[in-house]
């Protein structure tokens, strides 16, 4: 595996060298160039010649944003309830309050029973 890795590294390096040579010594760079385009030409080109491509690109970007936000959505219960709206959120809040109240009541009853048992044991000891 390591040998394969070294061979691929050497291959990529050789590819870069060939690419450099071909790119730098190509005949097109010897041809006489003209002046660089201006920003105005760029803007005109985008909104005239490439207008459909620009619109398609905007749609693509919008789709990408929607897809990305769908992929990273959080599926925790609280977020799902928030998505469902106010009624579901209030119902969940009421349920949570009721559960808390019930848990407190159970804790109070159990502590009272424990105190009663403790009193009974101390009376028996006396």
């Amino acid at each position, binding site marked *: 595996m390591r040998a394969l890795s070294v061979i691929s590294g050497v291959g990529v390096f050789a590819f870069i060298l060939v690419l450099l040579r071909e790119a730098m010594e190509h005949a097109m*760079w010897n041809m006489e160039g003209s002046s660089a385009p201006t920003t105005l030409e760029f803007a005109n*080109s985008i909104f005239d010649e490439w207008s459909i491509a620009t619109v398609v690109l905007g749609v*693509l970007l919008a789709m990408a944003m929607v897809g990305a936000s769908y992929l990273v959505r959080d599926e925790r219960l609280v977020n799902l309830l928030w998505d469902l709206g106010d009624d579901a959120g209030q119902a969940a809040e009421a349920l949570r309050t009721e559960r808390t109240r019930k848990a407190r009541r159970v804790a109070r009853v159990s502590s009272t029973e424990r105190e009663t048992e403790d009193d009974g044991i101390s009376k028996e000891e006396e």
Partner: protein
Amino acid sequence: MIEPSWIVALGAILFGIGLLGTFYHKNAIVVLMCIELMLNAANLNFVAAASHYGDVDGWVFTAIAIAIAAAEVAIGLAILLSMYSTQETISLEAANKLRN
């Protein structure tokens, strides 16, 4: 002004670095960065040619490529986040399934 052939050479070097990074790294974010490096190397070539020939189409191609790269990165990072939430790693060796 810098000779366009040198700019193209820089583009080739950047492309090679990106290619090597894509081959040799297993961290998905590093691979994503290397892919971006290769895209930007191609953009550099477009800009060099556009400046040399005075043709604005190279700039337009570059703008389109940058926008597509932005969309690609958004989707890629979202996939990585989704992968991290399910597998708790972003190593590409762990990404051997198309479903969770």
